[in-house]
């Protein structure tokens, strides 16, 4: 084999190898190997057949996080991390330039959306949902965050939370 042919084969082989490698990696999903996209918190997410208090509490929490995150213009996941500790909350407020009042309004809005969603899913009686909404509209920020983080205790102890109306409301939880 002469020198010119060997040169041609070397360059040709290099081009084919390079294209083959790039082609195989592309076909194997190389261009799409990215983190999954998180969903828009403002879009309605149907509840997944909640059965029992624990599942209702979970769906309630997720709806509340969606509602608050939508109001603040962040993802549900970012807000979940932000509400972990007082320090995380402070970092979150600083990063997104959010005041206590704005955060409180957003968290209350999230809780109200959770009540709406629970009612729509048939997980919360309309008789209980109405007074619960009224109470949640004025709940302080720390307590509102605690309610998101531990919705099970809210729903388990809704009578205590609503105060004097408890006797009227007993039996309305499914």
């Amino acid at each position, binding site marked *: 084999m002469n020198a010119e042919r060997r040169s041609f084969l070397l360059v040709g082989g290099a081009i084919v*190898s*390079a294209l083959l*490698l790039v082609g195989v990696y592309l076909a194997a999903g*190389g261009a799409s190997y990215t983190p999954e996209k998180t969903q828009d918190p403002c879009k309605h997410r149907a509840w997944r057949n909640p059965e029992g208090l624990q599942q209702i509490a979970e769906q309630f929490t997720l709806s509340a996080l969606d509602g608050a995150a939508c109001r603040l213009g962040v*993802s549900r996941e970012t807000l979940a*991390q932000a509400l*972990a500790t007082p320090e995380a909350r402070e970092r979150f407020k600083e990063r997104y330039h959010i005041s206590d009042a704005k955060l409180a309004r957003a968290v209350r809005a999230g809780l109200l959306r959770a009540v709406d969603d629970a009612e729509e899913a048939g997980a919360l009686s309309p008789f209980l949902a109405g007074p619960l909404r009224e109470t949640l509209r004025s709940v302080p920020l720390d307590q509102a965050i605690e309610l998101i983080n531990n919705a099970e205790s809210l729903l388990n102890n809704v009578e205590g939370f609503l105060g004097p109306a408890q006797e009227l409301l007993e039996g309305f939880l499914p």
Partner: protein
Amino acid sequence: MSAEAPRPRVAALALAVGLVLADSSIVVLALPDIYRQLDTSVAGVSWVLVSFNLVMALAAVPAAHLARRVGPGRAAAVGLAIFAGAGLACAVSDQLSTLIAARCVQAIGGALAVTAVLELLPATVGSERRAAALWATAGATGAALGPAVGGLLTELVSWQSIFLIQVPIALAAAVPILAVARHEVATGVLSTELRRTGRPHLLANLALALVSAAIAGALFLLVLLLIEGWRLSPIGAAIVVSVMPLAALLGSRLDRLVPSARARAAAGAVLVSGGLGGLALLPKAEVALTVPPQVMIGIGLALVLSALTETALSGRAPQAIHGGWTISARHAGVVIGILAVTPIFTHDIAQQRHDAINAGTAVILDSKAPPLLKLNLAQKIESRLEDEKGKVPTIGPAFEPLPTDPEEHDQVVELREELQDQLNRGATHAFSPSFGLAALIGLLSLIPIGLARRVEL
């Protein structure tokens, strides 16, 4: 002189070149350790690498002129002594600024030694062509072996040991060269004739700079991906990146089969770019998937570096000056490569880390684990992020202690794996644009290589 040239002297000259040029890449695997120990930023620590290459690029040609003026034996011996002394200063540095300053001095000594050696080699091995080939091979071997050796030393001893071990090696290489220096002093005669310097090979040196930028980007990014992105230990990363020098050995054998330097340069540039393209499109965070691209880059770098160095030196005199130009071009390329890719990937890694954490948290929130458990997990991740201060976090501790209930235990382990997968996706994807840019720079080197077909260099 070649008939009497002792083998130790040839070995010492090759060792000096390999040692100095290994230094352009030897700290690559130590950068994450230096980054943590000296508490700096990714951009800051990259200057440990950049400063050495920048000063080499600036000092190589003046150093070659100096070597010819004072005598290459003396210049090589003094250069190696400076290199060793500055290496010691690097090892005892406890601040980034002093480490970078010592690296600059090390580069000045290295530039003097490497260019002087090229002036000494023809008389030692018998011909300028053999001298150029030995010089280029020693340099390419050193540069290719550097990261693996640096990684092993970092893991087994410390990053400081990389510099400490260079001190006795540089001094050992200087001993046989001292005989030449003594001869120069005794006779007052320089071993080489002072000839008029011809102009450098512009296109070959330009191509060298571009392809070196691509290769530097490949090494720098791959090491950071393995250690910072996929959390490999330095020794693990050293084993992985040793694929490149092994493949380079294979590539150097092709030199003899294809005499055309242009064909070898073009094929090498295509292989380097193709390999980088593969790294930009990794379909999973698996070490095995980096092997085919590394093999291509290794073979490619052996072909293209030797072909372009040979072209740049062919028929040019004096060799030391033109060798200085190739050193200058290669190290300028390394600087350009690192400076071009660093801002892109530091920006991308911050964004991808954020996206990956959110995606992982979404996986947890949407999982079937008990609500309080998963909310607690999602929130513990926030604490891990804070602990790791902006780096890609090791997520395992967020899941400790694992639940004792077998069902919950399995759910948590599954969640941990899903979250780690999201983080790996984020880290891998963050490096893609930078690998892509390095591939593009490698392809650009085909322009001067192609032009060289028509233009007399």
